[in-house]
């Protein structure tokens, strides 16, 4: 059952699409030659370090940097005074909105420090030791305020207010009193009162999830230099260097044209590298000192001060008829945004019931601030949280109705034409096909032993398109140079070369691909929203077709034929039909050699706002065993089934499925932000923030379902985010299957699971089905 590709759409006779070539950047990455964020250096560079608030909530009454500045070797110090305040304005960053008023405050605290780890000052010095010593010389007068971490406590009347005067948006009439609730959102379809009245069985449950971090292995890093006339260069590990350029220009009051940003190789992002932290500070320090400044976060800083995703509390209610038809679904979602508004509660609400074709749905969401680091996007932001809760309730409902959980989902599955609660009607989607593939798994029928359980869950993510530019230049020897602008985090260069090579009928290795800097290519939105293979791929196809068109024009001119009398097949221009005369095929190499004489260089470029991104549905099946005496769950077998539209490079699609599933396994079983009563994070490191290690896991089986996206030239759907949506539900359902007990709180770590087992045992709970030694 390993790594199957189920081709469901008739496929043209592709030569390269669907194969598994070695990636163009592969050798650099297995030899240590590839240069990541912290691998860039400039002569005479300074070390930049940030001073962070030790308090979760405090007014910053004064900052005295004089002693730090006086320390020999210190070249610059910046604080809030070095960043102009910004008007409140929301702009897109990945799949989330950010507000520059908040960004400037998150980059450098202004009136208040709003979480432990909040940046309050920064220094640049000639050595790390001097920079560290200088931080200790900065005197900050804090007025410590009471802090709040929990979402319910933050929403309660009388809670410590983070942003005085904040009035909840989205409520009519507007509340008169300030609160920590930044926003209320609501999505309604039909009439749930009517729907629930028609139900035979209703399940209503409350759930909680904890903030979890993206956990990329490469900490944030950048290198900045600013000349005396204000021309800046920035090398940075980011998912979107045009976005970094925009944010830095805005925060520093610079013209966009003054800043060149080069995206270094990026050591993982998962959404967390779609925002700025160090970059504006490094530029400010570089400008002030006149020297290059390098800044690298410590792992501890990454945890304390860069964005995890939200923790949440949720109430989910679903009703169904005896025949398994879901009649109504309702959700109330309260998401922690961190210190500034902008949790992914909107997408959380929109995704919650997206896998199901429902008539009556109501989802209400709240975006709540608290004294935690501001959340950043994390792989399908918002989706896994609500998905976990909904899939748990769906599973419980199936059991109550004595229906097979896959059959129950199939009966209600979203399909082409289904109107989602958040508005649109789906085009062709692959949920039904994925559920059927799950039903057909050998794993689905395999026997389980005592204390073992099996769970299934479905998941959805929208995927996006967006602004994209690529350039494809035909070299004089027939090879090509491809420039794209979406950072390659997991094989993008390979996929783009494959699409260009397929279009042009050339060897993929004749194309050298570069992720261009902001100075070398038109605007590109970031790598996020599972858009890069979709959008940059679409642009590459357009650019390739432009090359084909130009090649045809050149050949037709030479052959003195009308342009439509030639055609491009298998890497060569040929006369189209017998009437066009007997000309031998003119290969792209020959076209290239004559380009100078036939009209000049041949370059194809494409600047698009890619539309037609299509959602991807996935279904996960998990087998696990629970140790009844310790509460520890061990994953035994795991299969990811997902619609890829079309897998350009199936190995990298599988990689997304496997990686997303394992991040979800970590989220389900062990990962969480742990705070003390003092409001400080207690596990800011990989020792106690427990991401899965190799020995925790079995092989992760995959099935790629292909229901082509009709709006992409190769049928591509984004695939990177959906895989993290189903795991928590699948694992919760498997634990319920193994133990007979329902867990409504993540992570399902051993102490929590054991406490529930022991409580059920003590209470004589008949649903407990474990075998004790």
């Amino acid at each position, binding site marked *: 059952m390993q790594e199957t590709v189920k081709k469901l759409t008739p496929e043209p006779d592709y030569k390269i699409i669907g194969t598994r070539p070695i990636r163009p950047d592969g050798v650099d990455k297995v030899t240590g030659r590839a240069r990541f964020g912290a691998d860039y250096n400039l002569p005479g560079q300074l070390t930049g370090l940030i001073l962070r608030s030790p308090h979760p909530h405090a007014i910053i009454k004064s900052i005295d940097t004089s002693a730090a500045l006086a320390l020999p070797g210190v070249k610059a110090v910046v604080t809030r005074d070095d960043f102009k305040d910004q008007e409140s304005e929301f702009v897109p960053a990945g799949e989330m909105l950010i507000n520059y008023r908040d960004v400037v405050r998150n980059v450098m605290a202004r009136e208040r420090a709003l979480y432990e780890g909040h940046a309050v000052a920064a220094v640049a010095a000639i050595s790390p030791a001097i920079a560290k010593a200088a931080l200790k010389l900065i005197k900050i007068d804090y007025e410590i305020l009471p802090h709040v971490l929990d979402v319910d406590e933050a929403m309660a009347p009388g809670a410590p207010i983070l942003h005085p005067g904040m009035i909840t948006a989205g409520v009519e009439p507007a509340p008169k009193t300030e609160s920590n609730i930044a926003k209320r959102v609501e999505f309604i379809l039909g009439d749930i009162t009517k729907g629930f009245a028609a139900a035979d069985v209703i399940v209503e449950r409350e759930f909680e999830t904890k903030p979890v971090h993206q956990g990329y292995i490469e900490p944030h890093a950048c290198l900045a230099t600013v000349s005396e006339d204000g021309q800046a260069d920035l090398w940075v590990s980011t998912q979107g260097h045009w976005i970094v350029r925009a944010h830095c220009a805005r925060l520093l009051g610079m013209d966009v044209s003054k800043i060149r940003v080069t995206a270094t190789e990026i050591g993982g*992002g998962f959404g967390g590298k779609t925002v700025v932290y160090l970059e504006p500070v490094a530029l400010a320090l570089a400008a002030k000192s006149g020297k290059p400044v390098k800044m690298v976060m410590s792992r501890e800083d990454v945890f304390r001060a860069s964005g995890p995703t939200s923790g949440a509390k949720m109430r989910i209610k679903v009703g169904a008829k005896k025949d398994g038809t879901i009649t109504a679904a309702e959700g109330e979602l309260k998401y922690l945004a961190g210190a500034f508004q902008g949790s992914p509660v909107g997408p959380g609400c929109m995704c919650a019931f997206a896998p199901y074709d429902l008539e009556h749905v109501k989802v209400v969401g709240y975006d709540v601030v608290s004294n935690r680091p501001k959340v950043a996007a994390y792989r399908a932001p918002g989706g896994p949280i609500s998905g976990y809760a909904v899939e748990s309730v769906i599973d419980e409902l199936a059991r109550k109705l004595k229906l097979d959980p896959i059959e129950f989902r199939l009966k209600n599955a979203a399909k082409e034409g289904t109107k989602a609660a958040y508005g649109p009607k789906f085009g062709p989607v692959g949920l039904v096909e994925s559920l059927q593939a799950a039903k057909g798994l050998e794993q689905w029928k395999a026997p389980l032993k005592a204390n073992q359980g099996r769970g299934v869950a479905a998941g959805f993510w929208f995927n996006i398109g967006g602004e994209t530019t690529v350039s494809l230049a035909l070299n004089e020897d027939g090879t090509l140079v491809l420039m794209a602008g979406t950072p390659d985090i997991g094989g993008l260069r390979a996929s783009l070369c494959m699409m260009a090579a397929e279009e042009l009928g050339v060897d993929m290795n004749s194309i050298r691909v570069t992720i261009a800097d902001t100075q070398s290519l038109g605007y590109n939105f970031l790598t996020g929203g599972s858009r890069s293979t979709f959008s940059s791929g679409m642009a590459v196809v357009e650019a390739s077709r432009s090359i084909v068109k130009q090649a045809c024009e050149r050949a037709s001119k030479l052959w003195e034929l009308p342009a439509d009398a030639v055609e491009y097949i298998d890497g060569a221009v040929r006369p189209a039909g017998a009437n066009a005369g007997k000309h031998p095929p003119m290969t792209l190499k020959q076209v290239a050699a004559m380009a100078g004489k036939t009209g000049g260089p041949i370059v194809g470029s494409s600047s698009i706002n890619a539309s037609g991104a299509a959602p991807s549905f996935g279904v996960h099946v998990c087998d696990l065993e629970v140790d009844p005496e310790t509460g520890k769950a061990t994953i035994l077998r795991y299969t990811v089934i997902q619609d890829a539209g079309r897998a350009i490079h199936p190995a990298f699609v599988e990689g997304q499925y496997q990686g997303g599933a394992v991040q979800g396994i970590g989220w389900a079983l062990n990962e969480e932000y742990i705070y003390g009563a003092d409001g400080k994070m207690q596990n800011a490191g990989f020792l106690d923030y427990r991401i899965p290690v190799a020995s925790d896991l079995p092989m992760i089986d995959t099935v790629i379902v292909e229901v082509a996206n009709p709006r992409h030239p190769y049928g591509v759907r984004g695939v990177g985010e959906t895989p993290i949506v189903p795991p928590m539900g699948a694992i919760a359902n498997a634990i319920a299957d193994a133990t007979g007990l329902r867990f409504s709180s993540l992570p399902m770590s051993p102490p929590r699971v054991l406490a529930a087992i022991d409580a059920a045992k003590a209470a004589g709970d008949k649903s407990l089905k474990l075998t004790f030694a």
Partner: protein
Amino acid sequence: MAKHHVSFTVNGDPTEILCETNATLLDILRDELELTGTKEGCSTGDCGACSVTVDDRLVCSCLMLGVELNGKSVGTIEGLAKGDKLHPLQQKFLEHHALQCGICTPGFLVASKALLEKNPNPTETEVRYWLAGNLCRCTGYDKIVRAVMDAAAEMRGA
């Protein structure tokens, strides 16, 4: 503060440096010798991105002081390929697409090489436990484990 004169070899090449007392082997490799293939992921021995060998023993270079290096031989990712020939592990990592972002890859390769030198025929479980100190957040480890097993098979055959 006085610096220490330290001499050792890196990938077989004699190396002499002046080293601050608190500089780690990782600092020296990356900042002094500009061998940036060895990565820093945590600096606390929890991620394995900085894996190197010292006298053929696999270690985290973040957990060793430079001043301890006198007379030692250090092996890094830059020493895996010989001339223009990739090590079988490097080749198998490429063929199995065992990397996505690539930041953890040098550490995994150095650690895997140390494993196969000790145990040319490891089971999947042995591979997984040996590599438990190398974190990868992208791949879910599946293709990494396959690549190591396949490289081991090929190296045994060769």
